[in-house]
């Protein structure tokens, strides 16, 4: 592997700089009318600080529209951040272009939500997997085929020769997602960003894919950013979890700690809205905060969650946004005035 740093679990103990480090990251999208008149902006990511050590698996949890996918795309270099800095392996990504950007892209693998949509339907698997290699100048058909076979074997699509000839629609959803993961691994990246990789898969396949991601992440000591809306798929597959709400990170902690002793009212709401399968569920009303997810165009003042928060303190929460680093425990950070 290209990153010589040792494992950084837990991240706070990391010697030197972590693999990925974002500070005060903002990604806004301008809303325009008639193509040029600015009428506002969508503040998808607003002041996110994030570190990801080499070999560390981190989950970003949040509901749709909380900015988690925009965060992923910004880190992938697909959106330009409107503010803040991102450093990867010591190099700033801001303003990276041309060759340097291409080199960065070889070091970051991307796994998307919809495995069928993520594969060009008119190419066979062989071709799909050859594309990144061709783009990054891996010469020689034999060499490419060797690497493709290795990647396919790694994600458990064996015999590789059978899979290579197939087209995406001939594979099941789980197999398609394995191909996507193989593609993300082909260029021997240092980091993988997986945006809702299992939300479109069946329950029996989900665990397989999550286990696969965890396995390759550990074997190659990859940094993994796992983006999900489903807190229940987090526990066994990452080390640390962040919760996003309204474009901001509201809580981050080691995953077991987060699930057992959540500090932010929003995380609590998520946990109490979700249930494990149980016959008694049908007999009880769940506690759900009222209201709607915040608008990213006209977000609420102060703490983004205050209009829905059962513990909101008047005169405080709607006035000033809480800083992101109240620490109820050493490695547990919450953006909530309750922990002041």
């Amino acid at each position, binding site marked *: 592997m290209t990153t010589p740093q040792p494992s950084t679990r837990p991240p706070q103990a990391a010697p030197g700089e972590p693999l990925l480090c974002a500070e005060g990251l903002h990604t806004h999208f301008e809303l325009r009318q008639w193509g040029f008149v600015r009428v506002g902006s969508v503040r998808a990511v607003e002041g996110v600080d994030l570190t990801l050590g080499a070999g560390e698996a981190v989950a970003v949890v949040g509901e749709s529209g909380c900015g988690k996918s925009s965060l992923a795309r910004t880190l992938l270099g697909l959106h330009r951040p409107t503010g803040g800095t991102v450093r990867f392996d010591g190099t700033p990504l801001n303003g990276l272009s041309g060759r340097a950007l291409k080199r960065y892209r070889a070091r970051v693998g*991307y796994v*998307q939500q919809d495995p069928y949509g*993520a594969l*060009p339907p008119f190419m066979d698997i062989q071709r799909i997997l050859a594309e*990144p290699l061709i*783009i990054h100048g891996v010469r020689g058909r034999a060499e490419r085929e060797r690497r493709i076979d290795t990647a396919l074997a790694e994600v458990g699509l064996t015999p590789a020769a059978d899979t290579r000839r197939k087209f995406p629609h001939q594979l099941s959803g789980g197999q398609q997602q394995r191909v996507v993961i193989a593609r993300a691994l082909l260029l021997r990246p240092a980091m993988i960003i997986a945006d809702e990789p299992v939300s479109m898969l069946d329950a029996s396949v989900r665990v397989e894919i999550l286990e696969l991601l965890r396995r390759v992440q550990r074997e190659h000591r990859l940094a993994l950013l796992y983006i999900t809306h489903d807190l229940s798929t987090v526990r066994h597959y990452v080390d640390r979890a962040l919760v996003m709400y309204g474009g901001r990170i509201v809580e981050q902690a080691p995953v077991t700690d987060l699930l057992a002793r959540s500090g932010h009212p929003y995380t609590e709401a998520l946990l109490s809205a979700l249930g494990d399968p149980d016959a008694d569920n049908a007999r009880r009303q769940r506690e759900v905060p009222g209201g709607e997810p915040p608008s990213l165009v006209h977000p609420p003042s102060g703490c983004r969650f205050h209009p829905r928060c059962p513990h909101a303190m008047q005169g405080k929460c709607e006035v000033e946004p809480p800083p992101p680093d109240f620490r109820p425990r050493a490695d547990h950070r919450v953006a909530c005035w309750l922990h002041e």
Partner: protein
Amino acid sequence: MSPWLQGLTRLRQYPSALAGLGIIVLLVAVAIYAVTAIPYSEARDLWRSGEAWQDLPTSAPPVWADRLLGGDAPRTIRVATDDVVMEQERYEGVRLQRATLPVEFPYGGFPQEVNLFVESQFDDRQPFVRLTWRTPDGEAIPLGARRVGESERISISQDRQLESRLGFAPQVGLFTDAAPGTDDPQVRQGTYELVIEAIQFEETATLDANLVVYGQVHGLFGTDHKRRDLAVALLWGTPIALAFGLLAAVGTTVTTLIIAATGVWLGGWVDAAIQRLTEVNMILPLLPILVMVGTLYSTSIWLMLGVVVVLGIFSAGIKMYRAMLLPIREAPYIEAARAYGAGNARIILRYLVPRILPVLIPTFVTLIPTYVFLEASLAVLGLGDPVLPTWGKILNDAQAQSALYHGHYYWVLEPAALLMLTGLGFAMLGFALDRVFNPRLRSV
């Protein structure tokens, strides 16, 4: 199996596709035959020359058309002195050559014209020729006597003197036994003879004569007003029509698609510029521009092709492809390609364009005849290529000569049939391809 192969296999289920393919294969075969049998330069010269066509009748319908209607119109009969024995007698200082050219005339109608082409070689003194027409009854009609030059056409049917002697136009009077002035003279069938008696004043002088009794019908396709066999133009029109249609369709669709994809992918001012250019171009009328170019500059088919392609690029197609490509731009696989470092050109050519090719192929196939028709329309408007024989030029000539008014239906119907056949072939194949590749139309 690749989706392409699957699509093509599925094509076999559509009889219309096979029929269309059959027609196209036939047209291509004709085109290949045309260019190999008559090379390009030869075809061009042949069509323009007058000499090559001098022994064909003017505006003669095809033989089969007459026979189908139960007619018995005469075909063209050619008899040459080379085919018969030339008698020779010597007198003092002169030679008398005599040849009898038999004309077997079994038809129910009178010939269109009668011409005698005479070629002679001499140093100084022209031969003197006397012609006599002998009917099957043995009656001899003198056709006059004259000196002939090296190459001469003696238009027997144009002989006014003879006409007044016979009481009919010569081509009628010579082939009937009706009394002069009869309203409806009937043909006297049988073997006629033209006796040529030449007096040669030089020992080495020669004389060759070639009698042409022009029929009222000709060949498979008939002739035009310049005696040209339409077969040549119909045959050579095929490769020109196909090439024009194919090149124009390829030129417009491929460039249009790539430009549309570029605009969709790059967005911003590039897209806006392409859109505005298209909108301006869409209100420009194609035909008047072509007429202007043709009138002011040149009517060369290749120039026309160029103008058609250039004006065809920024056409409604751009809007259509844009609408198809816009949702594809947002496809996760494109985002993935960006994430693994694919450049703009690669994304446009390898990720965007191939996605809509299946929908494009049928459009492309049905577009070919559109351009074939356009080329024909241009020719009809008098903007046909000045030298090449094409289907459109036949129509143009037919129109100029008021072919339909004169009842020369074959002249219009033959090129029209070929145009329709082309349209039919490509349309049947195109519609079937559409059903195969366009999922919205496919009903299970």
